[in-house]
C-alpha cells in the first residue's frame, strides 16, 4: 500500500470514492432533472413566458415608432418645444405616405388616439389623400385639417414616438400627462380604475370573510362526524365544486332575479309585496352571493384537511383541566386550525381578486370588478397595453399580499391538504 492509498478510500475498481460518489450523485441529479424537465419546460413556455410578454406589453407599444421612423428621428434631434418647421412637416408627410402605402396609417392613428381622443380619423383621412399632397407640406397638411397645426397634437406625437412608455401605467391609476408633460389626475368623470381596484379588493376581502365564517363550522362538522356520514356530507360539498362555473352562475341568476324563484316564494308567502321585489342580482349583492357560493369549497377543503387530524382528546383534556368550552376552543382548537385558515383565505382571496365570469354575468354595473375591464380592453377596445398594465398592477398587488402573508403568518404554515 502506498501513502496515497492510505489517505483515500477507493472503490473496488480503484477510483477514489469521492469522485465515484460525486459522479453517481451527478447522474442521479441529472436523471431527476430530466424527470422534472417536461414540467419545467411546460411551465416556462405556458406560464412564465406569457407573463413576461404581458409585462413587456404594458410598457412597450411600438405602433407609432415602427411606422413613423422619420418622425422618431426628428423628435430625437429636436428638443421639446421646437416649433415644427417645413422640414418637420415634410418628414411627417413622408412617413404618412409610407404608412398609407403599407396600410398602417390607421394603426398609427389608433396609437395617437389613445393619448389624444378624436385624432384617429385625422390620420386615416390623410392616409387616403397622402399621394396628392404637394409641398409646401405645412400648408397643404393644414389645409386638409387645421388640427395638424395644433401644438397639442405635436406634443402627443412626441410622447407616443417613444416605444417604451409608462403612460399605460399612469392611465391604469387614472393619471395622465398634461401639455407640459407633468403628471395630473384625469377628469373626474373619466376616473375608473382606482375605484375599481379598491372595489375589487374590498369585495374580495368581504367574500373571503363570509366564506370563512360559513366554512369553519361546516369543516368542523365534517371533521368530527364518523367517516360514513362525513363522506356523505363531503359529496354535498364536492358536487357543486365539480359542476361547471357557468352552470352555477346561471343557476344563481334563475334564483335571484326579480321574477326569480326566491322573489316568487317571498311574494307567495306574503313576506314582500309584488311591487317590492328584492333586487338581488345585477348589483354587488349578486356578485357577492354567487362568488361566495362558488368559492366556498376552496375554504372548506383546506380547513377540513387540518381539522381532521386534530385529536379530539386535546379539547377533552383542556375541558377536564377546567377550561370553559370557549377557552378550550380559543386556546387549544383554534390555534391548530390556523394553517388551514391561512391557506383557505389566501386561496379564496386570490381567486376572487381575479374573478371574471361571475361578476360579468350577475354584477350589473356596481358589481363588476377590475378583471372585467381587463377583459374589455383585451376583447372589445383592443388596447392590449392598457390591459397588460392593469393586469400587471393586479399581479404585483397579489405578490405584495403574499409577501405580507409570509411575513405575518409564515408561508411554511400554509397547508392545502
Amino acid at each position: 500500500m502506498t501513502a496515497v492509498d492510505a489517505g483515500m478510500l477507493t472503490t473496488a475498481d480503484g477510483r477514489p470514492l469521492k469522485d465515484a460518489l460525486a459522479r453517481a450523485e451527478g447522474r442521479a441529479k441529472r436523471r431527476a432533472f430530466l424527470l422534472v424537465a417536461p414540467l419545467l419546460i411546460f411551465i416556462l413556455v405556458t406560464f412564465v413566458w406569457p407573463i413576461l410578454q404581458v409585462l413587456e406589453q404594458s410598457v412597450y407599444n411600438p405602433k407609432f415608432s415602427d411606422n413613423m421612423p422619420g418622425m422618431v428621428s426628428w423628435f430625437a434631434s429636436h428638443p421639446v418645444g421646437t416649433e415644427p418647421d417645413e422640414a418637420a412637416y415634410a418628414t411627417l408627410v413622408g412617413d404618412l405616405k409610407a404608412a398609407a402605402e403599407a396600410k398602417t396609417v390607421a394603426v398609427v392613428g389608433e396609437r395617437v388616439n389613445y393619448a389624444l381622443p378624436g385624432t384617429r380619423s385625422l390620420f386615416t383621412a390623410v392616409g387616403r389623400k397622402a399621394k396628392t399632397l404637394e409641398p409646401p407640406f405645412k400648408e397643404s397638411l393644414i389645409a386638409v385639417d387645421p388640427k395638424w397645426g395644433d401644438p397639442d397634437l405635436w406634443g402627443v406625437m412626441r410622447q407616443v414616438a417613444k416605444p417604451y412608455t409608462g403612460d399605460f401605467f399612469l392611465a391604469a391609476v387614472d393619471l395622465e400627462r398634461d401639455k407640459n408633460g407633468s403628471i395630473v389626475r384625469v377628469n373626474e368623470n373619466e376616473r375608473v380604475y382606482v375605484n375599481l381596484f379598491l372595489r375589487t379588493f374590498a369585495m374580495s376581502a368581504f367574500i373571503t370573510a363570509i366564506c370563512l365564517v360559513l366554512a369553519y363550522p361546516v369543516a368542523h362538522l365534517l371533521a368530527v362526524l364518523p367517516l360514513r356520514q362525513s363522506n356523505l356530507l363531503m359529496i354535498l360539498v364536492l358536487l357543486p365544486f365539480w359542476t361547471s362555473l357557468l352552470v352555477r352562475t346561471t343557476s344563481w341568476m334563475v334564483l335571484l332575479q326579480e321574477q326569480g324563484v326566491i322573489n316568487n316564494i317571498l311574494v307567495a308567502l306574503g313576506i314582500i309585496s309584488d311591487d317590492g321585489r328584492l333586487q338581488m342580482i345585477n348589483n354587488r349583492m349578486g356578485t357577492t352571493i354567487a362568488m361566495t357560493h362558488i368559492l366556498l369549497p376552496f375554504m372548506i377543503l383546506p380547513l377540513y384537511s387540518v381539522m381532521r387530524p386534530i385529536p379530539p382528546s386535546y379539547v377533552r383534556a383542556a375541558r377536564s383541566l377546567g377550561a370553559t368550552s370557549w377557552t378550550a376552543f380559543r386556546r387549544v382548537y383554534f390555534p391548530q386550525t390556523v394553517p388551514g385558515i391561512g391557506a383557505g383565505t389566501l386561496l379564496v382571496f386570490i381567486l376572487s381578486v381575479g374573478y371574471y365570469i361571475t361578476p360579468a354575468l350577475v354584477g350589473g354595473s356596481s358589481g363588476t370588478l377590475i378583471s372585467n375591464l381587463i377583459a374589455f380592453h383585451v376583447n372589445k377596445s383592443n388596447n392590449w397595453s392598457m390591459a397588460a398594465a392593469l393586469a400587471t398592477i393586479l399581479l404585483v398587488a397579489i405578490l405584495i399580499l403574499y409577501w405580507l402573508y409570509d411575513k405575518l403568518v409564515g408561508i411554511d404554515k400554509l397547508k392545502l391538504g
Partner: protein
Amino acid sequence: MKKLLILTTALTGFGFAASAEDITVVSWGGAYTKSQVEAYHKPFTAKTGINVTSVDSDNPGPQVKTQEEAGNVTIDVADVEYSDAVRLCDEGMLETIGMDALPPGADGTPAKDDFLPGSVTDCAVATIVFSTNYGYDTTKFPNGGPTTIADFFDTKKFPGKRGLGKRPKANLEMALMADGVPAADVYKTLGTPEGVDRAFKKLDSIKKDIVWWEAGAQAPQLLADGEVSMTTAYNGRLFSAAIADGKPFKQVWDGQVYEYDLFVVPKGAPHKDAAIEFVKFATSTQALADQAKWIAYGPARKSSAALVGKFNDGKTDMGPYMPTNPENMKNALGSSYEFWVDHDAELNDRFNAWLAAN
C-alpha cells in the same frame, strides 16, 4: 387498444380533411344567426358542398382585430358593424372584395346601382339594415304604452326597469334624442364636451333602473323574463320574440338608430377563396330576400326589396317591421361611423367610468 388507436387516428385525419372544406362564419347569435343559417349557410352548402360553421359573438368586429393582432386568424367571414368594417379595412386587416366582384341583381341591375348608397366599401359588403330601437311588454302597460323615445327615459310616467346595451353606442344618441335634440343635430351635439355631458346626464336619470345586456339575444330575454318593462334591442330580435315566439311585445320606432351590418373577410383567413365566394353568394338578391323571411332586417340590395313578402309563418307582412319602412323613419337617426371611428375610445372610457361610479 391498437385498433382503437388506428380508429381515432383515422377519425382525426377525417376531421382535418373535413375542416379543409369548412368555412367559419362569426355572427351575432340568436335569431339573427338563425336567419343567416337558413338564408345563406344552408343554400350555400347545398350549392357548393362547402360546410359553414357558425360561431356566435357579442360583437365580431373586435374579435377579428384580436385575431389579426395575435397573428392567429381562424375566422373566414365576420358580420361586423360599419365603424368596425371601416377601421379594420384602414388598418389593413381585411381582404379587399370590392364592388366589381359582386354579381348584378336578379333583375340585371349592376351591383353598384343595386346596393344601397354606401353599403359596399373596399373591404366589406352590407347584408342588412338593422336598427336599435326599443320594445316594451304590453301587459305591463294596460292603459297605453310608451310611444316616444322620451317615454323610455320617463320612469315616472312608465315605471319599471329598463334594458340597455352595455356600451355607449346608440345609448348616447337615444339619450340626446330623448332630451329633445333633433336627429339631424345628434352627432354635432355629441361632438362637443357639453353634448356628451348632456347625454350622460340623461342616462344618469334612469341609471338605477337600468339592467344591462351584452349579447343581442339577452335583450328580448330580459323582457320575456319580466326583468325589465322595456328594453332597447336590435329590432329583428324584438320582431322574432313577438312574431315567431308570440310574446306580447310592441316596438317603438321613435328615436331608432339604424345602420348597416356588413360581411368582411379577415386578412389571412384560412379559406379565403371560399369565404369570398360565400360573401358573394350571401349578398345576392335572392339570399338577401330570403333572409327577410326569417328576421325583420332590411336587405341591402334594392332588387331584394321587391322579393320580400311575408314572414315564414306565411301570414305576417314584413314591411311594417322593417327599419326603413317610411312609417318607422319619422324620427330616425343613421348611425355615424365617422363619429364612432374617432370617438369610441374616449367615449368607452367615459362610459366605463360612468358605469363604475356609484
